[in-house]
């Protein structure tokens, strides 16, 4: 079975979803990520969904699960790059991705992760979105 690759970048894990995921692939990613958080002792997970053309309730639930599981394991997850049409559809569908941190792009997402883990960071972070929303 095919798998979505997970890259390690220091204390972060990086995932870029570039295929139209079938449900089992989404489940496999969820499992792989939780395992990798434990084995690599990662502090943050960045999930780039900028290539995803839809997020339905199944993928939405997977993103929520990954966020919760990461948190339980002492890491934070941030979902970045959602396309505007996907965001509009998601909200109309009734999914608000409660509890999932989001950022506009990879750069903003990394800033957010660095702030969460309290890393020494000289740059101004004032333009980063409120993590509570």
């Amino acid at each position, binding site marked *: 079975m095919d798998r979505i690759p997970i890259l390690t970048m220091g204390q972060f894990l990086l995932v870029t979803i570039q295929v*139209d995921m*079938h449900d*089992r692939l989404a489940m496999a990613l969820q499992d792989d990520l939780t395992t990798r958080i434990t084995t690599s002792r990662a502090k943050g997970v960045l999930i780039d969904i900028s290539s995803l053309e839809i997020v*339905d309730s199944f993928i939405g639930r997977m993103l929520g699960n990954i966020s919760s599981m990461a948190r339980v394991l002492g890491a934070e997850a941030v979902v970045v790059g959602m396309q505007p049409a996907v965001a509009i*559809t998601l909200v*109309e*569908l*009734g*999914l608000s991705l409660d509890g999932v941190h989001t950022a506009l792009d990879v750069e903003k997402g990394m800033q957010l992760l660095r702030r969460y883990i309290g890393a020494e960071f000289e740059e101004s972070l004032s333009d980063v979105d409120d993590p509570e929303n």
Partner: protein
Amino acid sequence: MSTILKTEKLDVSEEQHIVAVRQAVRRLALEIKLSLVDQTKIVTAASELARNLLIYGGGGEVILRTLSAGIRHGLKVEFIDEGPGIEDLELALRDGFTSGGGMGLGLGGAKRLVNEFEIDSAPGRGTRIGITRWK
């Protein structure tokens, strides 16, 4: 009244077929030049309903039709199964209702994403759901 421009049929009997349904809906939505947001909405609704078809209906058939009504074009997608059917349609369409492991967004959510939504179901008679998005 609308006329049918094109009809396609897809069988949904395993999980990978949900992806095939999404791709077919996307292709036809592009063909009738739906806007990107409208494409995304009908593809997402179709994804929800194709999954329902598989999980609750035990699989079935998806029929896609491009329609023409005067200068308007539309895409209609029907989901037909011979599964157990739905006992209480009103309840099933309510947000938050789920009989399985879902999030309870399937039917009500899918309905909000399209212009027309038809449902015909009764216990033991299977379920037929039709969604249409017009340009």
